[in-house]
């Protein structure tokens, strides 16, 4: 059972417009959420994160919104640029018995920004 879901495998957006990527989770113990961007044959690159005590975090063109009651988060990219074209992974972590916190990833959304 996938605990982190990205239901849209792909998204196409025109350059300059807003890209909205969505993510749902089922485990109410998750308290930290991250978005990563990934190019083929490269490691995931950290974009932005949000703690469960917040509902919004902004960094430049990237904003992440968290709706805890709906167990839903979204990543907004404004304005979208062709260089943003990549696979975007949503990831979540929660308190575990160990000292380190593993990430649970969604299946990713391929964003294509059209010039």
């Amino acid at each position, binding site marked *: 059972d996938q605990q982190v879901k990205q239901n849209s495998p792909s998204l196409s957006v025109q350059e300059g417009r807003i890209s909205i990527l969505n993510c749902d989770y089922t485990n109410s113990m998750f*308290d*930290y959420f*991250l978005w*990563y961007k990934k190019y083929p*044959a*490269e*490691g*995931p*690159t*950290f974009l932005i*994160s949000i*703690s469960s005590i917040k509902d919004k975090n902004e960094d430049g063109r990237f904003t992440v919104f968290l709706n805890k009651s709906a167990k839903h988060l979204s990543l907004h990219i404004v304005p979208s640029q062709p260089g943003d074209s990549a696979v975007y*992974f949503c990831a979540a*972590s929660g*308190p*575990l*018995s*160990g*000292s*380190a*916190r*593993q*990430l*649970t*990833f*969604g*299946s*990713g959304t391929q964003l294509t920004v059209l010039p």
Partner: protein
Amino acid sequence: AAGVIQSPRHLIKEKRETATLKCYPIPRHDTVYWYQQGPGQDPQFLISFYEKMQSDKGSIPDRFSAQQFSDYHSELNMSSLELGDSALYFCASSGRLPQETQYFGPGTRLLVL
């Protein structure tokens, strides 16, 4: 800024052989994580180490083992390789805070023939 270093970047092995993947975390990061990403799949957590001790274990096969050394680098040892082990193996590192962000290396692409 220094990033996570993984070696080798590419590795080709035959069935039943062994492989060792290495990970060098970002300086002053004391926690290392290993993930496996199969073709068309999302990264799956394998194992993590905090201060040279195993911290959490995910879907790591018994044929695999890992450790973190005194300089905080980590090695993933894979024995009796199977065709299904072909995947991208990512290492990530993080610092000391409970919710510290994990930063990923470029990955090692393992192909088992």
